[in-house]
């Protein structure tokens, strides 16, 4: 029915029906209270109109009534809150084994980078029936990755990674919108998400003209930018050995411990002085301004791949960890 009458968005992810049920519950409450109030107002207006009821009876108020209409809405509101929060919790925590796709927003286009190496612009291919986690950053202003059919949305910020995840359940082509106002062509920063059967997806990936895997690109950059001169795969380098670092806690020289997630690796490259690994001198030069967002992604993916076969145990949260470790101070 929704197909003919475009009054409702397609449901194409695992979370979508859950969001919709909650939405209908909220609609029901809204309709109930709006009609209740409208009905009571009209009823009183007719029954006690001046012609019928010339003399008003003075009534002071009633504490029991006040309590009723404080507590009942409060209770309903708490149900709404808990329900919404439980869905939000699912939405905020990407499953550990989700496949990862990187995204870079820039005025005014979306660039996607599959780990296998395929790159896309404004079109995103994803397989049906798998958890997909987007690791996103922006090259300029704040953008927002929004797929109505999946009921997910997350701001894409400059200077750090943010994450959103979804589990497509229905093959098809869906809108991708930029939902955060980002300047002139904000409304043109749109694209398509194409959900494919898993085998079709595999076929698409292998035919997609990949120039080697993303971590492979990262490895080349690692050589090219001279990272390898300091970071060697033994303990002789001037910088720490990066093997197995990703996803693990790192002890810093000021005594704090941070978890090496994507944001940490990113910061280590762009602003190495902010968090210095314990036992090392702050000699690493900054690469700010020398690496594009895409190159950064490749390097991050490479460092991840050094952590072993399952780099996807990535401890990135949905609401990303900013360069911030106040709690550890």
């Amino acid at each position, binding site marked *: 029915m929704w197909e003919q009458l475009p009054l409702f968005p397609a449901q194409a992810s695992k979370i979508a029906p859950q969001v919709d049920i909650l939405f209908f519950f909220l609609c029901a409450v809204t309709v109930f209270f709006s009609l209740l109030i409208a009905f009571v107002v009209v009823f009183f207006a007719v029954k006690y109109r001046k012609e019928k009821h010339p003399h008003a009876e003075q009534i002071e108020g009633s504490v029991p009534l006040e309590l009723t209409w404080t507590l009942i809405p409060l209770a309903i509101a708490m149900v709404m809150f808990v329900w919404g929060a439980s869905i939000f919790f699912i939405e905020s925590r990407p499953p550990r084994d989700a496949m990862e796709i990187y995204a870079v927003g820039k005025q005014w286009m979306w660039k996607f980078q599959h780990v296998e190496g395929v790159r896309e612009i404004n079109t995103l291919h994803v397989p049906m029936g798998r958890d997909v986690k987007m690791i996103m950053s922006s090259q300029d202003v704040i953008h927002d990755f929004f797929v109505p059919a999946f009921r997910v949305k997350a701001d894409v910020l400059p200077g750090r990674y943010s994450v959103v995840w979804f589990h497509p359940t229905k093959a098809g082509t869906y809108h991708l919108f930029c939902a955060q106002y980002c300047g002139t062509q904000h409304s043109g920063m749109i694209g398509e998400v194409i959900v494919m059967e898993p085998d079709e997806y595999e076929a698409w990936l292998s035919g997609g003209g990949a120039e080697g895997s993303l971590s492979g690109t990262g490895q080349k950059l690692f050589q090219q930018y001279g990272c390898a001169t300091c970071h060697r795969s033994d303990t002789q380098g001037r910088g720490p050995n990066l093997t197995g670092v990703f996803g693990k806690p790192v002890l810093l020289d*000021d005594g704090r411990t941070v978890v090496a997630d994507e944001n940490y690796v990113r910061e280590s490259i762009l*602003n190495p*002085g*902010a968090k210095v690994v314990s036992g090392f001198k702050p000699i690493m030069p*900054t690469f700010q301004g020398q690496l594009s967002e895409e190159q950064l992604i490749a390097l991050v993916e490479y460092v991840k791949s050094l952590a072993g076969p399952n780099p996807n145990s990535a401890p990135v949260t949905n609401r990303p960890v*900013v360069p911030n*470790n106040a709690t550890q*101070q």
Partner: protein
Amino acid sequence: MSSDQAVVASELQHHFRDMEQQKETATFGMWIFLITEIMFFGGMFCAYLIYRLSYYQSWVDGSQRMDITLGAINTAVLIFSSLTMAMAVHSAQVGKRNLIILFLILTLVLGCVFLGIKAVEYHDHWENHELPGKYFSGLDKNGVDKGWHDVPHTSLYFALYFAMTGMHATHMIIGAGLLIWLIVAAYKGKFNENYFSPVENVGLYWHFVDIVWIYLFPLLYLISHKHTG
């Protein structure tokens, strides 16, 4: 009540019942205005708090470039000016016109001394490229690297340093203007023991500006000075 009215009827505005009400109202209004000032600076204190917790190292580096001696002298100057301001109000309360003028002038002079010292500090930071955002550089005036760990965030420290002290200095300058106005009015004999609301309210303002500095001094100069590790 009504005896006041006879004495200073000219100072009583038409919509007040008596001088008492007029004075109460003026003082209360001033306090409400000070509320807005607290929240105004509050926005910057909020930014300071968040960034200090996030980029602690930069705060250590930044605050080590502060001249504690000058800061301490300035604190003393400002506290002294609060005393003279309080004395000016006192003189107004007891109706001593010449003393009002004397203390107001003293306050004004001390305020200017504060601003002067602040200008010296600003100049020093300027020479050493200790400036906000893109004007910042890790090198001092002789081109020597200061060995800062986290350059972008240390520049943030200076952004807040200049924003907060700059906004404070702006308030001092406004305060100085108000003082000049008071001095002229006092010279003309506008104030007496029944009518001195303007002196009192400018006093409140001046003390408020002092209080802001009482917090700025430790936050910017002192608390990160000794690296806590």
